[in-house]
């Protein structure tokens, strides 16, 4: 092998504390090094040209660059050696800036260390071999999990971009949390007027197929070629026939069914359509409260249905779809505020959550848009809002800020004044976090134009007094204790990860963080990618987000999916594990340990079990390589021999004549 070594000065960044000329001299004596030089800025255009010229002039077949971190410029130099006609994997980097010149003061030690790192790189490079990416075809279809606003945006963008889309929604209708909102901040736009048309687009788009009342059961395959099993829960209504006329819901005698859409503020009928703008607008029976399904008596809906779509015998159905990419948009749940003793733990009916309050404000809600408090239906005059209920509180393991509660509380204070002009709102807050466009102005409007009284401090307790509740808390700005009589208390409940997130994460091999939010690939530069190629995140499943951010992420995830599937074929990173079938004994330990399901068992011609790596799925972690008792599976570019060569370069074997290789 003919190796060229290039030592970068990086201006004075490296040369200031490393004697680069000495490193060049030392490196020239390393095995198989035929050319060594230094340059001022190796990553600059003349620097890269210097590498290319040297490769041609000295007939090099491997290159070592000693400069900054490979996390910084490895791709740059790989492209450079590729331009010179070498394989991009015949290149190694020695990090003599971040790991040497910037952290050590002693020039002699630094120079010595830099030379060691170059030797390591040379020894590894001597064992590198050219690797070529494999290409494979993809399914031009995207699965969107979750039909909230993020999922809707992702699905529409993908479909408009020409991809087929399968949308899976757990609930009876898409729309998510946004469909429950009355108005949105900071424009006081009607939420359903903004979202409704998009929901209709989902239903009508010829490239989107919607599975409501459905959940993802299992996922196999890999980027470009996922196979997804979807469980369609029985709705006891044949949706191919149902027209959504609603006659059944009017006649249903079982009117005590819980109403999740209205946040359990009222009850609904056993067979129902959750709200007027529901998509799909189809009826479904709640089997827990249906008299026909529970006791075998009734059957009124079947009698009144004009198209005969009621089917009491319906069973769950499993559907399998093949997709190329997956967008996870499973959203969030609200914090269970009953954990706080100071808010009454549910003893007082007039302590409600912010989302329940939205339903009270909404014209399609249980009160028809008139604010009536749950206990006696009276119109409240004094409304107290308590912020950070389950946000920024380590005592309930929710140290994070839920982000948008400050804003919706301001919105609700404004709407309260709109609905009841002689009302007075009080807001107990910790800090006001309003960093979005027009947000701070909005909170100021709530205070200045709508007279909401903001009290900076926490609430210590709520206790009943006559038909009112007394909210006792601190006013930390005034340095006093305050007691506010309230007709209604609204808790700005924080965001927590969706209930099924951990289970879904296991299915998709997407890691949830300690709070259950899915972890993105890189917090700054890869906010919608995950560690599993082809799986993207959108919306609040990744962390608390308001509507515009969720929509933005929905589009971002769609752009990623479109970008991925726009290529006819995908190229996989060739630095993946490879099985030496002669050594493999078929123990399948690698299959058990692989976190990506990238290894499968195959039978060879002799009928023996062998492991086989699906190169396009393998992410190149090398866990299997360490697990294999035979050393049969080796991670390319990080083989045992390559790593041991680096070890030996640093600590030369002392026992002569004994070879470990």
């Amino acid at each position, binding site marked *: 092998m003919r190796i060229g070594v290039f030592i970068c000065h990086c201006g004075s960044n490296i040369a200031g504390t490393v004697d680069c000329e000495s490193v060049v001299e030392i490196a020239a004596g390393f095995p198989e090094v035929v050319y060594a030089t230094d340059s001022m800025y190796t990553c600059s255009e003349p620097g890269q040209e210097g590498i290319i010229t040297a490769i041609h002039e000295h007939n090099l077949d491997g290159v070592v660059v000693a400069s900054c971190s490979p996390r*910084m410029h490895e791709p740059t130099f790989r492209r450079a050696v590729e331009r010179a006609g070498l394989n991009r994997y015949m290149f190694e980097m020695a990090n003599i800036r971040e790991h040497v010149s910037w952290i050590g003061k*002693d020039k002699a030690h630094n120079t010595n260390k830099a030379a060691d790192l170059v030797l390591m790189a040379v020894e590894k490079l001597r064992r590198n071999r050219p690797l070529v990416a494999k290409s494979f075809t993809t399914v031009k279809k995207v699965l969107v999990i979750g039909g909230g606003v993020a999922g809707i945006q992702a699905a529409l963008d993908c479909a408009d971009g020409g991809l087929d889309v399968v949308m899976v929604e757990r609930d009876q209708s898409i729309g998510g949390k946004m469909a429950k909102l009355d108005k949105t901040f900071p424009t006081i736009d009607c939420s359903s007027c903004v979202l409704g048309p998009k929901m209709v687009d989902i239903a009508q788009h010829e490239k989107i197929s919607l599975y409501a009342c459905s959940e993802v059961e299992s996922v196999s395959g890999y980027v470009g070629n996922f196979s997804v099993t979807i469980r369609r829960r029985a709705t006891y209504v044949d949706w191919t026939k149902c027209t959504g006329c609603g006659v059944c819901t009017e006649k249903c005698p079982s009117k005590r069914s819980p109403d999740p859409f209205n946040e359990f503020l009222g009850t609904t009928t056993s067979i129902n359509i959750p709200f007027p703008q529901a998509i799909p607008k189809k009826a479904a029976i709640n089997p827990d409260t249906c008299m026909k399904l529970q006791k075998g008596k009734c059957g009124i809906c079947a009698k009144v249905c004009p198209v005969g779509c009621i089917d009491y015998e319906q069973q769950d159905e499993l559907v399998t779809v093949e997709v190329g990419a997956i967008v996870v948009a499973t959203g969030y749940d609200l914090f269970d505020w009953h954990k706080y003793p100071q808010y009454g733990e549910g003893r007082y009916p007039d302590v409600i959550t912010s989302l329940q309050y939205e339903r009270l404000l909404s014209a399609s809600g249980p009160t028809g848009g008139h604010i009536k408090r749950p206990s006696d239906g009276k119109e409240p005059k004094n409304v107290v809002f308590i912020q950070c209920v389950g946000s920024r509180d380590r005592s309930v393991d929710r140290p994070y800020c839920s982000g948008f509660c400050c804003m919706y509380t301001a919105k609700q204070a404004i709407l309260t004044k709109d609905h009841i002009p002689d009302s007075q709102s009080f807001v107990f807050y910790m800090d006001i976090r309003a960093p979005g466009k027009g947000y701070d102005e909005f909170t100021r409007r709530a205070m200045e134009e709508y007279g909401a009284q903001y009290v900076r401090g926490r609430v210590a307790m709520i206790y009943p007094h006559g038909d009112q509740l007394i909210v006792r808390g601190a006013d930390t700005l005034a340095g006093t204790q305050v007691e506010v009589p309230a007709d209604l208390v609204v808790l700005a409940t924080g965001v927590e990860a969706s209930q099924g997130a951990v289970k879904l994460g296991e299915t998709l091999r997407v890691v949830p963080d300690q709070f259950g939010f899915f972890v993105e690939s890189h917090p700054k530069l890869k906010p919608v990618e995950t560690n599993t190629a082809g799986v993207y995140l959108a919306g609040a499943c990744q962390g608390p987000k308001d509507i515009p951010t969720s929509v933005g992420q929905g589009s971002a995830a769609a752009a990623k999916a479109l970008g991925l599937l726009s290529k006819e074929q995908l190229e996989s990173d060739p630095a993946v594990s490879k099985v030496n079938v002669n050594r493999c004994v078929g123990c399948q330990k690698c299959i058990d340990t692989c976190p990506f399901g990238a290894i499968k068992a195959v039978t060879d011609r002799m009928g023996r079990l062998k492991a086989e790596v699906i190169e396009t799925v393998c992410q*190149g972690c090398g866990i299997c390589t360490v697990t294999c008792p035979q050393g049969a599976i080796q991670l390319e570019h990080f083989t045992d021999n390559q790593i041991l060569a680096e070890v030996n370069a640093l600590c030369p074997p002392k026992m002569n*004549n*004994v070879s470990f290789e």
Partner: protein
Amino acid sequence: MSAQDEQRELRIVGFLCNWCSYGGADTAGVARFIQPTDLRIIRVPCSGRIDPLFIVRALLNGADGVLVSGCHPRDCHYAEGNFYARRRLEMLKRFLPITGIDERRFEYTWVSASEGQRWQHVVTEFTRRIHELGPAPFFNPVSEEEWAKLALDGAARGASCACHG
């Protein structure tokens, strides 16, 4: 560290996962957090890629210390590689005294890509520990003849050898 120690570097090998700790070491460098220069870092994709035998090899070859660092548990880029690493490395740590190697010469830890300061602390502390322990004891080089004799002796003892009862 005394002035004399500072002059004499010891050989410390680091195995760092690419995604967290290598990035953390980069972060420390970018922030110019001054560290002892004894450590040389080998980059691996994941702490789960580190075969305990790499560490043993380094120690047998005369390394004075070996430091392994990966992503914090639950933060692994490959979902669960550091769980495998943790188990393997903990086993190794308990096993080293049996081989006659001082287990204090080996340490593993978790440093994320943003924890430059923590990395500085880890390196400084570990290097100080190794300097306190001093250079690793020298393994007597054995000639080929001696190896052959050892092997023959072992074979002659057969089943009654000390290790197999």
